């Protein structure tokens, strides 16, 4: 019993008086001004859809997962978004394991309301088969360290995780077109969620003397404050939610001032989140490149752009040994892509590329669909050839066959790469003589030399 008492943090009268006195001269105990946020650091892990946010001493992690499930009866066309909070006992001596406390439930509700009521996450795009099968997105928030202002930190973590989450692509197939097939990430690139805007929560703490308001209270300030209010807005100054649960009464003018300040803070934080997500996406693209050096990038632009028109810069240097190992597969990939480019001028495909072109890679999650017109199995075979360096050819065939069932149009896959390469080479020479610049020209001459030995060459 004594140890229990000893572990609970207590506030002395000295601290309470001091914090209030200091606030009268606009000073806060960590040296901030009343309307300053603490430093925000957003980190991601290798797993997609997980984010870790540090707001001063407060430490929060968010994980996003998705599952196929049945939709609600009254909303058969929409997916669902649910939020679960866990206040870990290591965050604060007053957190108990087990049932979520009132504060935990309130935090979950505030963040959930900010996302759901403002329709930030597009739930209609999560529908796979109306009335039968939709994606249920689940956000798990773990509080690791309570340094004050958990709502804001958890909100940022949830948004960052949702922005970097990728769900598997699925298509309808089977005899009657009613069967849902989920494609694993190695076969088809997973898709991001469609997020229209970012609702940012900004918390204000009110103190007992007149109109003292601070933004982003620390643990100490929260223990001393008389009341708090959380306003959730987005960068366009649209108010998504306001939460003021009990506490001291506040003048209307103070509330309006708080909302104005919250607008500015929301804009700053939105920029920070976007930058962090962008650099994470770039880094992930770079990582993918190192794994699959034979991939060649295509430009992502709006629909209807002819691939032949947008020519990429030549593929930069890669390790020589790597290249020589993968030359044969790469040439196949390039050639197939050529056919692809010629045959389907309206189709866009985004594979990953290094450095300079990585900037082109950042298509906003809300406007990017890698397979707007379906996928040609030839193309798929080529990407498999480039991706699965260690994959035996049989595995390719299996996955090709599997993709086949998901495809609307029947295309006959060649038996093995050798056969296909001869087919492709024949057509490739035809393409070459076109004089039109294709992806072939983007490939470094060294590769071409090796390929030239097996086919007639012409530039």
């Amino acid at each position, binding site marked *: 019993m*004594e140890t229990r*008492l000893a572990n609970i943090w*207590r*506030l*002395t*009268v*000295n*601290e*309470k*008086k*001091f914090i209030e*006195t*200091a606030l009268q*001269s606009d*000073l*806060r*105990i*960590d*040296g901030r001004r009343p309307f300053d946020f603490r430093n925000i650091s957003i980190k991601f892990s290798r797993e997609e859809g997980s984010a870790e946010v540090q707001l001063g001493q407060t430490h929060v992690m968010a994980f996003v997962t998705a599952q196929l499930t049945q939709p609600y009866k009254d909303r058969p066309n929409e997916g669902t978004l649910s939020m679960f909070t866990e206040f870990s006992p290591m965050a604060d001596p007053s957190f108990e394991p087990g049932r979520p406390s009132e504060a935990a439930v309130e935090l979950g509700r505030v963040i959930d309301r900010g996302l759901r009521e403002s329709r930030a996450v597009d739930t209609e795009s999560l529908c796979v088969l109306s009335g039968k099968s939709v994606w249920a997105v689940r956000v798990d928030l773990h509080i690791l360290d309570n340094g004050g202002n958990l709502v804001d930190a958890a909100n940022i973590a949830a948004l960052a995780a949702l922005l970097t989450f990728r769900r598997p692509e699925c298509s309808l197939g089977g005899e009657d077109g009613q069967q849902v097939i989920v494609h694993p990430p190695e076969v088809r690139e997973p898709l991001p969620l469609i997020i229209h805007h970012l609702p940012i929560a900004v918390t204000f703490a009110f103190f007992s003397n007149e109109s003292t308001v601070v933004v982003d209270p620390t643990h100490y300030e929260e223990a001393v404050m008389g009341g708090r209010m959380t306003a959730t807005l987005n960068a366009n100054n649209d108010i998504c939610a306001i939460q003021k649960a009990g506490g001291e009464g506040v003048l209307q003018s103070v509330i309006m001032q708080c909302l104005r300040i919250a607008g500015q803070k929301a804009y700053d934080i939105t920029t920070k989140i976007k930058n962090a997500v962008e650099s994470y996406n770039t880094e992930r693209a770079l990582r993918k490149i190192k794994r699959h050096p034979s991939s060649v990038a295509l430009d992502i632009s709006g629909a209807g752009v002819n691939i032949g028109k947008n020519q990429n810069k030549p593929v930069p240097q890669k390790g020589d040994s790597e290249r020589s190992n993968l030359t044969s597969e790469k040439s196949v990939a390039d050639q197939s892509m050529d056919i692809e480019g010629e045959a389907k001028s309206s189709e866009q495909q985004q594979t990953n590329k290094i450095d300079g072109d990585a900037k082109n890679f950042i298509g906003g999650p809300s406007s990017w669909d890698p397979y707007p017109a379906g996928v040609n199995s030839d193309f798929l075979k080529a990407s498999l050839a480039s991706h699965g360096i260690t994959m035996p050819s049989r595995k390719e065939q299996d996955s090709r066959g599997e993709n086949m069932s998901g495809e609307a149009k029947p295309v006959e896959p060649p038996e093995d790469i050798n056969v296909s390469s001869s087919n492709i080479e024949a057509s490739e020479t035809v393409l070459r003589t076109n004089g039109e610049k294709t992806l072939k020209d983007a490939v470094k001459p060294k590769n071409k030399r090796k390929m030239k030995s097996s086919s007639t060459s012409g530039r």
Partner: protein
Amino acid sequence: MKAGKLRFSKPNKYWVESSQKRYVPHAGDSVLGIVVDSKADIGTLLYVWVVKVNPSMNPELSCTDASRKAAEFGQLKGGYMFESSTGLSRMLLSSPTCPVLDALGKKLSFETAVGLNGRIWVNASSPSTVIVVANAIMNSESLSGVQQRIMVEKLIQNLKLST
């Protein structure tokens, strides 16, 4: 057995100095305590002296030290208290005076009470001074002497600029 730095003082004294947040009571220590259970004074901050320690019972505290009532012990009024680690407390109490207190003392006037249980109380005439002193002490645990002086100078410059 706890991990820590090995210290040496001539001619033949060696000890291991560790630092953590949890304090293990020891007779003869001066600590800062908060009243948790009494008729009226819950939340009062007291500077007390540990008299006797038993492993299974609460330690016995007293407001007088070994000889008589020293003026410093007892209730602390005003000021601001914060918690840190035991190692920092020991460093602040060491002699010669630790560099951060020395550098702060040259420019500002304040008073402190350091409890070996990791709690530190600071009081000064203006809140900004208290905040600067508290933050300087909090940041100084892992810094060397020279770094501490540099940090203190920077903080004081910021203070002068803002006032």
